[in-house]
């Protein structure tokens, strides 16, 4: 589903963030991405969503090389990926409802069809009561969950989560991971970047470990 072939990413200002990275994630697989701060986790996820371009190497998603994707196809590529951002990326002057509705609205779905889906997504992250709230009035964890609801509302085949539970208490975090596992069960491909070593060692999934931009371990718990 997602394949990296000798991918390098070099930021002009900062040097190489990813070095000669190769791995493959099968369709329906769920994997954790871990490593120290600055290891390149966010960069890796951004490359998949085409928020950044690799400096060298190839990335293949769903059998298609991203380098060959014409610019006008990028939006359709992004619609197939539910991205949860480390810094949330919410619209500050729109309600929680509008934020979660955005991925559906941009596909041209009429608003009466959107409502049911948005409420279902908000319900799954426990934020149904916050529909009308503005993101700024929410706690960090609540904002994070709005971001999660927005990523799942379009039922994308791929979910990329960047520190999705960084601001959540253990109990809420467990609920979110339960949610991810439910998506995994119905065939969604998931990649979750996290520092939460304890949790990933308890869960039986593949772990990709980055160190200074290099893949240093590709292991599996069971």
């Amino acid at each position: 589903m997602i394949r990296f072939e000798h991918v390098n990413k070099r930021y002009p200002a900062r040097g190489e963030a990813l070095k000669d990275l190769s791995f493959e994630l099968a369709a329906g697989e769920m994997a954790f991405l871990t490593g120290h701060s600055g290891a390149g986790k966010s960069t890796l996820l951004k490359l998949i969503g085409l928020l950044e371009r690799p400096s060298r190497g190839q990335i293949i998603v769903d059998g298609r090389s991203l380098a060959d994707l014409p610019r006008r196809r990028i939006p359709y590529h992004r619609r197939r990926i539910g991205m949860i951002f480390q810094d949330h990326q919410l619209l500050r002057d729109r309600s929680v409802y509008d934020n979660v509705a955005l991925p559906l609205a941009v596909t041209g779905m009429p608003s009466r069809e959107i409502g049911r889906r948005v409420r279902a997504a908000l319900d799954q992250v426990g934020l149904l009561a916050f529909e009308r709230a503005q993101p700024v009035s929410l706690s960090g964890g609540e904002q994070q969950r709005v971001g999660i609801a927005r990523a799942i509302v379009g039922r994308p085949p791929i979910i990329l989560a960047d520190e999705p539970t960084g601001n959540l208490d253990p109990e809420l975090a467990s609920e979110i991971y339960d949610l991810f596992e439910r998506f995994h069960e119905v065939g969604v491909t998931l990649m979750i970047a996290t520092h939460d070593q304890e949790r990933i060692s308890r869960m039986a999934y593949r772990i990709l470990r980055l160190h200074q931009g290099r893949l240093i371990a590709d292991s599996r718990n069971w």
Partner: protein
Amino acid sequence: MGTRQAGSSGRHPRRLATWAEQHREIAVDSLRQMLQQPLGALMTVAAVAIALALPTALVVALDNVKRLGGDWQRSAAISVFLEADLDETEGAQLSQRLRQLPEVERIELISRTAGLAEFRQYSGLGAALDQLSQNPLPVVLELHLKPAILEPVRLTPFIDQLETMPEVDFLREDAQWAQRFQAMLALLHTGVALLGLLLGLGALLVIGNSIRLEIENRRDEIRIMGLVGATARFARRRFLYTGAWYGLFGGMVAGLIVTLMVWLLSAQVSAVAILYDHDFHIQGLDFAATSLLLIGSTLLGIIGSRIAVGRHLDLCDER
């Protein structure tokens, strides 16, 4: 992918309804957003309205002048004085022939008796004329011309043609001033069109600049829309509607300004017309002109916004 919900293939009418609903939603939403910053919106609308009101007012003024001229033009004619030895019957025959000419709208034959009667009335020489043993006046044909030939290029050869006819003694043209009037009107029309073009361009730039500011303010929103898969076309649409609203409202206010001006002037104009023994009422924007103004201003808004959007919209596409 299995989990992806395939968009149920709607039949055509349904898709059209969805599409229309989508547009309506964006139109309403962009209007709502405009009203959230009423002062800025008001200033843009006012600037557009003023830029459009001036050429619109001039067009209305010209139309009224043309209408006034039209009243006079109906009396514009060429008087053809026939040779003195021709009588009314021969005059009528010639009149028949002239009526066939494409330039001629209608012909009035003024018999010698009628001419004399008229002359008597206007000259005040009543008694003196009674002394004449015979009527010295020739038969006169009043040629009323079609307005289309009042341009010099067509009128001059026509007059030359008349003058060379053996039955014709001489001509008196009332048409010449009408001809000058036509030329002047055409000149003014061109001037107004150029001015309209210039001010329309000004309105376009004002709208484009407002949209540019708006894009600047919504940079984050546009970027995030791009992150979740908005196409450029989708992101653009809202701004095109904002531009359309600016244009439409600007056009409406311009129309109101001109209507108000006409209303303020109408009493005075009628009073002046009465002094000239003329029943004339100034006419404002009619339905067609109003529609044209509103459609034109809306298009102006869309184009202005399209230019701004094309230059400044960034959907986080590529680096």
